[in-house]
């Protein structure tokens, strides 16, 4: 059997790169937040240290097999999402399995992890976890709707559900979908705020209120795996948005620039806003983002 080495390379390196970029973004976020709050802030590699520390914890507890598997679900979802997104446009190495899936699949695989985590959190029996899950799922319903509207608008406009086809359409920066379908972008980016879970939509983990919510019983390697998954997932989502709206990237430098700019939107919003309550955030997602979503679809239809 002939082994496609470039594919193997991609499979091995994509998660690693995603993790490194994602974790660095996490550290930078903390740094930027600190600078905005007139603090010095931790070094950019702080999150790596945190994750290493968590993995090196010598004792771990779980409340049962679902809690044990919860983070595994999460990282499965993250890595699978990543594998089905073309990270670098037209690259034989970093497109991975993106020809075997499409946007609808990505929509669903993206919730796979949160549901798995929710199951894990549920088994701990900690009321805070359950409250967090309840809030998280409610909010999920909130932001998925405008997000899907944006995606539907785009899918209909370009008559495809495949990310690679969308990338092929955006061969020049004037043809980026952000310019071709600005309302879809608005709806999607507002939904993206909810997806990333920064303030004002951080009611799910709300550390001072419900003791970090779903992961409140997770420590040590479980928390480490969760953070790893989160780093990868952040990167995957950023790449997805870049691919859909910003024309993807031919090389890593462009990719990093685009994703970083995109990433700063939720981060900077998060720093200046207080927290929404659950129903407030749902109502928010069902007001302006929904309006933009409808507008986007109407523009496409007529």
């Amino acid at each position: 059997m002939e082994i496609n080495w470039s594919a193997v390379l991609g499979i091995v390196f994509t998660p690693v790169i995603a993790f490194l970029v994602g974790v660095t973004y996490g550290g930078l976020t903390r740094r930027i937040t600190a600078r905005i709050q007139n603090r010095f802030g931790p070094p950019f590699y702080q999150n790596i240290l945190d994750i290493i520390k968590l993995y090196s914890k010598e004792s771990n507890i779980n409340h049962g097999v679902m809690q044990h598997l919860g983070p595994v679900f999460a990282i499965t979802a993250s890595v699978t999402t990543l594998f089905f997104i073309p990270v670098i446009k037209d690259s034989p190495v970093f497109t991975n399995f993106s020809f075997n899936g499409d946007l609808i699949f990505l929509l669903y695989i993206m919730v796979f992890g949160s549901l798995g985590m929710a199951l894990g959190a549920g088994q701990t029996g900690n009321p805070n976890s359950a409250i967090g899950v309840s809030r998280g799922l409610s909010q999920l319903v909130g932001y998925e709707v405008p997000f899907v509207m944006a995606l539907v608008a785009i899918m209909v406009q370009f008559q495809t559900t495949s990310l690679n086809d969308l990338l092929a359409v955006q061969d020049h920066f004037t043809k980026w979908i952000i310019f071709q379908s600005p309302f879809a972008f608005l709806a999607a980016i507002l939904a993206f705020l909810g997806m990333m879970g920064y303030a004002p939509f951080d009611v799910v983990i709300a550390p001072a209120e419900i003791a970090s919510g779903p992961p409140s019983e997770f420590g040590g390697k479980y928390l480490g795996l969760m953070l790893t998954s989160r780093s990868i997932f952040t990167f995957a989502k950023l790449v997805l948005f870049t691919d859909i709206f910003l024309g993807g990237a031919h090389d890593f430098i462009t990719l990093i620039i685009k994703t970083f700019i995109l990433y700063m939107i939720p981060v900077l919003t998060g720093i200046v806003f207080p927290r929404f309550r659950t129903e407030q955030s749902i109502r928010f997602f069902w007001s302006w983002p929904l309006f933009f979503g409808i507008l986007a679809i109407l523009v496409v239809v007529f």
Partner: protein
Amino acid sequence: MFNDKEASKIVDIIKNFARKHSLWVVAYGTGCGAIELPPTMTSRYDAERFGIRGSATPRQADVLLITGYLSVKTLKRVIRTYEQMQEPKYVIGFGSCTINGGMYWDSYNTIKALDRYLPVDVYINGCMPRPEAVISGFIKLQQLISEGKADGAKRYRENLEWYRENQRKVIKNWRMPEYNW
């Protein structure tokens, strides 16, 4: 290149480096000392630059910070919180009250010496210790960690019976779940 021992040494160094620079604190705001923590964490003193940050639950935390005096009633909770933390874990006694009872030295209901009940790694003296002192205490802890001397958890495990005896002595209605290592 390396033999096993050296390799594990390097791993230890990395581990300790990470542990040292990533101290997640569950701050048990028992006494008046808790008021010193906000300035420690926020802009003025910014403990986060040393990798110190608050943690919401003991499951995720590395450091148990006892901020001030401990009443008997609170001790029970503190012990449980400590036992729920994952190893390696450290305890910092904060303020004079944790060392010798401080101004509550003759109170009937207060714990005088914390290290009879929990293995304290670092004490921070003062009533109140200023944020600078707190940070200095943390840096002392980091130093101990990198030297591998912050072995409070190990001590607690090894001398569990002694600690239990002391704990039972003050806590009259002892209804704690057994600590299964």
